């Protein structure tokens, strides 16, 4: 009997079909919250190429149709591909010219199907998406991951935001946040990410979508504080350590 020990332990050898992809140019976290009038989303503008921050003006928040806003983290080229798919979807929807337009729930479902089907073909789109919008007074905020995991919630985050921003959001999010309070909350989370996520850059955009429409802010940067006494002279009194 031929022993199968030599093949069993090893993963697929080189030369087989391309099973795993590697992301090349990636964006870091996106955070989205529901507030009183609609959805607020924040993302920074960095595109990292491995461990260098190659691009500093990548817009990762984009409008989809009349009612939705999409934010993506992960591979930027796959994000652009998704935007093409959505473009086609919205175009066909407009061509029907029936007075109805696709809302955030429908777009979210479409994205889920795309992501899940690509994952089943072992050729995923390497993104984590946040989709939010308002239609007929109904606010909707959902998330889809690279393998097709999707859910709907009052506050979502992708990537590092899951670990650093969600605890803050779980503490401090309320149903009736005003616009200013929402922005302050998002900035608090983004500042946290800036301190503790190595691929974050200090240039971010905040997007707001309400029943009336969508606005994506101009890029701006956050104020950071580095003047703790202990940071000035960290080893005073503790000579020999660092």
């Amino acid at each position, binding site marked *: 009997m031929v022993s199968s020990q030599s093949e069993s332990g090893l993963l697929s050898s080189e030369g087989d079909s391309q099973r795993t992809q590697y992301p090349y140019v990636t964006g870091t976290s996106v955070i989205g919250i529901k507030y009183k009038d609609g959805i607020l989303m924040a993302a920074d503008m960095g595109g990292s190429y491995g461990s260098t921050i190659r691009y500093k003006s990548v817009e990762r928040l984009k409008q989809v149709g009349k009612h939705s806003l999409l934010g993506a983290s992960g591979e930027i080229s796959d994000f652009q591909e998704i935007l093409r798919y959505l473009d086609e979807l919205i175009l066909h929807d407009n061509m029907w010219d029936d007075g109805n337009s696709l809302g955030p729930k429908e777009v979210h479902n479409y994205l889920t199907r795309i992501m899940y089907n690509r994952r089943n073909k072992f050729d995923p789109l390497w993104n984590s998406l946040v989709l939010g919008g308002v239609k007929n007074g109904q606010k909707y905020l959902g998330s889809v991951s690279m393998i097709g995991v999707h859910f709907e919630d009052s506050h979502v985050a992708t990537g590092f935001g899951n670990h650093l921003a*969600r605890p803050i959001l779980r503490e401090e999010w309320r149903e009736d946040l005003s616009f200013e309070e929402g922005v302050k909350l998002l900035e608090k989370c983004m500042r946290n990410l800036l301190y503790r996520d190595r691929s974050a850059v200090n240039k971010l955009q905040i997007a707001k979508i309400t029943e009336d429409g969508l606005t994506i802010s101009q890029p701006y940067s956050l104020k950071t504080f580095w003047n703790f006494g202990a940071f000035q002279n960290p080893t005073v009194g*503790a000579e*020999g350590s660092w």
Partner: protein
Amino acid sequence: MGVGFETVPFLTTFILLPKTSPLFPYSSGFFSQIFCESPTRLIDPQLVSSSLLPANLLILGVSYLKMPSETMDVPKTGFSFDLCRRNDMLAKKGLKSPSYLKTGTTIVGLIFENGVILGADTRATEGPIVADKNCEKIHYMAPNIYCCGAGTAADTEAVTDNISSQLKLHRYHTGRESRVVTALTLLKSHLFRYQGHVSAALVLGGVDVTGPHLHTIYPHGSTDTLPYATMGSGSLAAMAIFESEYREGLTRDEGVNLVTKAICSGIFNDLGSGSNVDVCVIEKGKKEYLRNHLTPNPRTYISSRGYTFSKKAEVLLTKITPLKELVEVVEVGGDAMEE
């Protein structure tokens, strides 16, 4: 056979097996080394078997033919890294060893205006199971120094106990209060010597003559000196709270509240942390160990009626027979227990 080991310089044990016996696979032909009766000598049985016995009989046991005193090896001290070679061999064959497990914990420390506050959760996990719902992760190092430990529980306890006793001896020798940098250096050099194999990530805090100090120590032996620090699997959740709310010059109550908030963030947002919050406040000249300062996870559903078990079987008759009457107890003169 049947000779005591103490009386003869060598011991002979042969168990002969025909080649057709079902025990054949276990016989010496299939082992490269067999542990013989004497614990310090390993002999290749081929050398013994081929010269002494017919070819169709194989040895199961091996004799030790030299005087024990001539060839006694002194056992090596410290960690034995023999299995590392085996692991390397397996890894080359394609076996994926389990990656470094950050065992569940949230531990934090912060410096407030008069001293240091340390905090920890109380859950000890064994893979996916909670092994201890209310363990103590804040370890005593010195009257003015405490240390929180994350990582392998045995490693953190052993390392902190060891350094704690070294500190005590040092206190006797010098006649002075221990300093936090002393504990830091002892811990750091111990962990570095073991190259990260002692999986202990520590938050060390205390107040000594030079003031309050807070340090983090990583399993490979690097350290940081910080105004606020978190370690463990829940460290990101706790750090999110610290980064957004820490200020300099916090009062004691504000500091305790912030530490509690950070640990709760770890408890509720990280699966590896849970149960209760322990806090330890160290100031100049005094310390307060607040065990289970907050218990945000009580058992919610307890039957208010208590537990009673219905008496299904009726008792008809009760008869008690002391066994002493039935048995003869004979006292034998001499020692009670001979080993």
